[in-house]
């Protein structure tokens, strides 16, 4: 496993790279391109070794834990990175680790490291409209289901899907190339491409991953943690952008930043932004602990309870500029909304927490 110092060095370089090469103008250019993300940029990420971060060392990766990578997502969120780092980088390591067949594993690991394998996790939360069924089919399985707005769905090469197999939880790695896998790209409001996924496909036996319900939950927790880390980065940048703007912008002869209500509102945004960062730190420390799911739910819920409102304040004090596409603040808001909804909204997480609170010994 990579030691923390080497990781810190890597993250510093990532931060610098994004600062220099992924400014708001770069983001806008990439977002306006037909593809909606940049394959050149993706190749740069690959060549700098980002994609192999969580792949086990024996498979040629850097063997970092997902928790160690959350810092990267703070930077990526702040830079509004459009390339599909989010699902792959956090879950690829765990998925590769479970693959039994050596050749498959090697191919998968190399694919991830080289940027050609991109994974997307279909979260279980969206139960209301997902009807996923699976039955044994000879040696393999017949999987059927539809899933709306899957994060990273449009540019994924593999989908990690959970389903109920008889009484058992089961998790499948479904290659996009499989017959009967239909991907309907959906552009999310933050400019990233998700997909509505339609699966009606026969799969080989080895598509079934040896991952139990807890392991499945863990994968979801990891992606949710990534969303929370990105959100912390977004909040910080939204705050900084707003402060800069408010110091420049004058009304009635005074910079807006000199108005007390503006100052107090920004102080409130600062508090939310700092608390979000504290939560990311807590999540990163607790991700291997017994309460990780609850902790991730709390962080995700905080994003919905306090995070949205914070950026709404930033927009408000931008005045008309706040709702224009040419200013960054609206883009931070849209990114935050997507991050808040991916892997379970605040409502859903609060409900899960309430359930757990209720069921604890009275």
């Amino acid at each position: 496993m990579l030691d923390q110092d080497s990781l810190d060095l890597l993250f510093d370089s990532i931060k610098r790279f994004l600062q220099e090469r992924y400014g708001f103008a770069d983001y806008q250019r990439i977002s306006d391109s037909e593809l909606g993300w940049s394959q050149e940029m993706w190749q740069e990420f690959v060549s700098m070794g980002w994609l192999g971060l969580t792949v086990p060392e024996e498979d040629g990766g850097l063997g970092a834990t997902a928790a160690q990578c959350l810092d990267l997502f703070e930077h990526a969120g702040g830079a509004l990175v459009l390339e599909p780092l989010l699902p792959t980088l956090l879950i690829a390591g765990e998925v590769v680790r479970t693959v039994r067949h050596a050749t498959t594993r090697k191919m998968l690991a190399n694919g991830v490291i080289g940027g050609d394998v991109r994974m997307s996790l279909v979260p279980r939360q969206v139960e209301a409209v997902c009807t996923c069924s699976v039955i044994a089919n000879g040696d393999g399985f017949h999987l059927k289901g539809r899933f709306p707005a899957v994060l990273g769905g449009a540019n994924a090469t593999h989908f990690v899907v959970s389903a109920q197999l008889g009484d058992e939880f089961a998790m499948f790695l479904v290659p996009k190339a499989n017959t009967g896998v239909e991907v309907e790209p959906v552009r999310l409001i933050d400019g990233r491409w998700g997909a509505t996924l339609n699966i009606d496909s026969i799969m080989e036996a080895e598509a079934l991953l040896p991952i139990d319900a807890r392991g499945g939950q863990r994968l979801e927790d990891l992606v949710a943690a990534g969303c929370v880390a990105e959100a912390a980065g977004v909040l910080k940048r939204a705050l900084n952008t707003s402060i800069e703007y408010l110091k420049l912008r004058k009304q009635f002869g005074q910079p807006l930043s000199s108005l007390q209500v503006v100052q107090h509102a920004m102080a409130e945004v600062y508090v939310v932004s700092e608390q979000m960062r504290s939560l990311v730190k807590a999540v990163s420390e607790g991700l291997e602990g017994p309460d990780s799911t609850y902790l991730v739910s709390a962080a995700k819920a905080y994003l919905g309870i306090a995070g949205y409102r914070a950026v709404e304040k930033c927009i408000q004090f931008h005045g008309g500029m706040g709702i224009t596409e040419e200013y960054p603040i609206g883009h931070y808001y849209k990114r935050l909304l997507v991050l808040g909804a991916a892997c379970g909204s605040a409502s859903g997480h609060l409900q899960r927490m309430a359930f757990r609170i209720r069921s604890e010994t009275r």
Partner: protein
Amino acid sequence: MRYRYSPELEEFRHEVRCFIREKLPSSLARKTRRYEHLAKEDVQLWHSILAAHGWSASHWPKEYGGPGWSPVERYLFDEECALADAPPLSPFGLALVGPVIYTFGSDSQRQHYLPKIRNGQHWWCQGYSEPDAGSDLVALKTKAVLEGSEYIITGQKTWSTDAHLADYMICLARTRGEGKPQASLSLFIIDMQAEGVTVRPIETIDHGHSVNEVFLDGVRVPASALVGEENQGWTYAKFLLGNERTHNAQVQRSRRDWQLLCDMLKQLRCGAGCLIDEPSFGRAIAELDVLLIALEASVKRVLEDQVRGREPGTEASILKLEGSELQQAITNLAVRALEEVSGPLSFDLITEHIGLEGPCADYAAGVAERHLFRRSVSIYAGANEIQKNIIAKSVLGM
């Protein structure tokens, strides 16, 4: 629940309702629910239907071609339009320019402009805000210089809704270089086809285009384009903004949004039941109704005062504040509901995928745009912070 009015008023409401039911094309209602930025022809179609019935300029006095309704009748008319998803007419000519012209304009302005505003032939936009003067109109820089029988107007306007569709702009410009701004601004009518007028679209975060920058580069207008007296523009503009603020409560449209959202929550499946059975959503939709009922009660109070001849003062600030926050609160809940059921928002929600049908499916399809664009309602027409300043200063004497 809804408020009951006198039998005469309920009769009036019934008449309006039947008219709309008969005349409003369902495709227009559908687009309105979807929160599409309607094409000019769409709005004009509905405008001409109303105009043919004498109902387009619903709050104008009879002598200028309005129906001569009381404030309560106007309110009920607007409510019926909202509940039927009739597209809102372009407000600038009808709600802002018309009243200014029939109150302060010349006879020839009245004769020339009012009929064409009423019948929807002319579209108007407003030219108040400037890049460095948003809620702060005092800092306006656009200049109008009298040269012989013409004014030459130079400056830059922004946040001009519908400028790309408009035939005329009502423009606030500086006619005196020094002195109090309150006594150095004038109001002009500018033909949008005139030389020197350039419109640059502003894309908003909902990917829509409704607002614009307008560059005025030595635009020449005849002296007759001046509205009322020179240097009295500030007074007229305040009069306009006052009108705008009452209108901006948008309580009838919010009531309709609430109904559609309610239906959406009743259709969206969640576990064994639907979202509205999930008590956190049940409570939230009830809470929105509480706020709506309170706002409706406040609007009604203002209307009754108007009937008694008292024009709304600071109440308008209350309506603008609460009205805009309510509009945002409604879309917040709609977003929460969609997030719960289908994950991250997109601009192209396929409503069948989440089991929606009927009017609320149209509503759901436009929730992302609506939510994002609605961030503006607490900003425009005197940001909510400005409204609070007004209340603190002029009501509370702080």
